[in-house]
């Protein structure tokens, strides 16, 4: 079990600011060790990677590649060449969509789900628009907030190029049956692109178990620095895919007419990378490993379940997504009757410095399916204690007293 008191001490923001931070699905706070790693780069290394012949640059390169190895280990890949560093999860999906679209053999259907974040919908839509090559279709979501697997099976036609799916929904918190979906896709030679933004921060992921072809996630949602994401791709795919961006370090040979691409991951990482952030992300992975990812998982799930249980007892609260058990991740979205989610967020902030998210959470199609104008969301992480959930619940009741009572608009 996590010792939250000890964990809290590692997070300077929690010492410097009076906040009950429940917006972890958006971005997590940063532990000391990661901040120290960033500082160490600027104070003691300060150089670029791969290009220098001198000692200092070698040392930077070594630390940088060690971080890549840590990330590979974290997702269960035995080859760091499968780890491409990107700007964020969003950029990773854009790279995949662009690449597949520019790959001559790839032609047919792209399946995404109604519960995807805009970042796993729009890159595909951009490629499908005005082109004969890709046709986009959506897998239905049930009223309960689960994927309709029968619908998935019926839409998974032999001409399906790729399936995009969130490991865990950032709105309804549903943990999707990735293994089953991947097996079905592979039977029809379709590739699977898993948006891991909400999975990787607190759930064990092993590529040899889930077998997806591509996986994307963001460092800033798992104790890491901003400006950094990861694109995992199976090595043979990365070797054959056309890269979307050109620049330095991504080619082996250039003459005025022809280029020979470098091997992955460099092929997808033109230009100078975010070196400090990548090295520091290695420290985030270390931190999570020290806590133990299954302990993190258990802790976060328990907090979310506590929130779901307590919210369920309030008659004027509606909760979205599966109510309990294995299939729910570490967040809960809900509405308080008569109180707009924006007002609720403002009220929780004013009443007890509680930070939650309100709005559409970049998942407008899902809100449309659920017939909601917007929702409020609380999401939990390693430094949250059960008391944080209780304060959150108390503040909701207080906010309802102050702002509720208005007729439905």
């Amino acid at each position, binding site marked *: 079990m996590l010792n939250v008191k000890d964990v809290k001490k590692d997070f300077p923001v929690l010492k410097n600011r009076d906040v009950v931070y429940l917006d972890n699905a958006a971005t997590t706070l940063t532990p000391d060790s990661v901040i120290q790693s960033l500082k160490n780069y600027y104070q003691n290394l300060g150089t670029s990677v791969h290009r220098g012949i001198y000692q200092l640059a070698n040392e930077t390169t070594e630390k940088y590649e060690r971080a890549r190895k840590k990330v590979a280990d974290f997702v269960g890949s035995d080859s760091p060449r499968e780890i491409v560093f990107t700007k964020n999860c969003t950029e990773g999906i854009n790279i995949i969509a662009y690449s597949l679209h520019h790959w001559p053999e790839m032609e047919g259907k792209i399946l995404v789900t109604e519960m995807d974040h805009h970042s796993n919908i729009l890159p595909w839509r951009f490629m499908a628009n005005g082109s004969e090559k890709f046709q986009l279709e959506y897998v239905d979501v049930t009223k309960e907030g689960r994927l309709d697997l029968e619908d998935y099976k019926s839409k998974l036609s032999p001409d399906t190029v790729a399936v995009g799916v969130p490991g865990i929904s950032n709105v309804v918190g549903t943990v999707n049956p990735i293994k089953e979906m991947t097996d079905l896709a592979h039977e029809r030679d379709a590739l699977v692109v898993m948006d891991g933004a909400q999975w990787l921060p607190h759930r064990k992921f092993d590529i040899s178990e889930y077998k997806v072809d591509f996986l994307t996630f963001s460092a800033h949602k798992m104790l890491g620095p901003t400006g950094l994401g990861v694109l995992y791709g199976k090595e043979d795919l990365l070797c054959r895919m056309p890269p979307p961006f050109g620049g330095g370090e991504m080619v082996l040979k250039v003459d005025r007419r022809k280029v020979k691409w470098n091997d992955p991951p460099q092929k997808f990482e033109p230009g100078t990378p975010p070196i400090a952030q990548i090295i520091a992300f290695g420290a985030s992975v270390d931190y999570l490993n020290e806590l133990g990812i299954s302990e993190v998982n258990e802790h976060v799930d328990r907090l979310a379940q506590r929130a779901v249980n307590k919210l369920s007892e309030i008659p004027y609260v509606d909760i979205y997504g599966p109510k309990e058990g294995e299939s729910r991740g570490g967040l809960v979205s809900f509405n308080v009757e008569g109180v*707009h*989610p*924006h*007002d609720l967020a*403002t*009220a929780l902030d*004013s*009443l*007890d410095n509680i930070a939650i998210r*309100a*709005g*559409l959470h970049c998942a*407008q199609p899902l*809100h449309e399916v659920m017939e*909601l*104008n*917007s929702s409020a969301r609380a999401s939990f992480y390693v430094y949250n204690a059960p008391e944080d959930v209780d*304060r959150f619940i*108390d*503040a909701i009741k*207080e*906010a309802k007293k*102050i*702002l509720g*009572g*208005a007729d439905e*608009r």
Partner: protein
Amino acid sequence: MKDKPEIYNQDVVHHYQNPHNKGKLSDPDFSVTEENPKCGDRVTLQIKLDGAEISEVKFHGHGCVLSIGAASILTQMIQGLNVREALELTFDDLVENMGNPAKMRKDCASLSLNALKKALSGW
């Protein structure tokens, strides 16, 4: 929990709970809907002119205290103004009646004002 913090200016909450000029005009000269894509709030503002003067104004839609409160306050502010005066209204004029959180959540509070500007720019 803090002792009685003021979440919103009480007048704004009152406007939200008892909105003025809420409804639809049967024969408006202008009708403009503004939406906030971040939160799904939506306000439709309808105006009827008598010459250059705003003779009737109504709004409808759904949203938070700030977007609905602001719409209600704004309809009161512009009733009887002429078009030029209405076009000169600024966000700060509106915020004066709404208190600080309105500034923090400009997207919400300015929804109806944006609708007003769009509507009258076609005059």
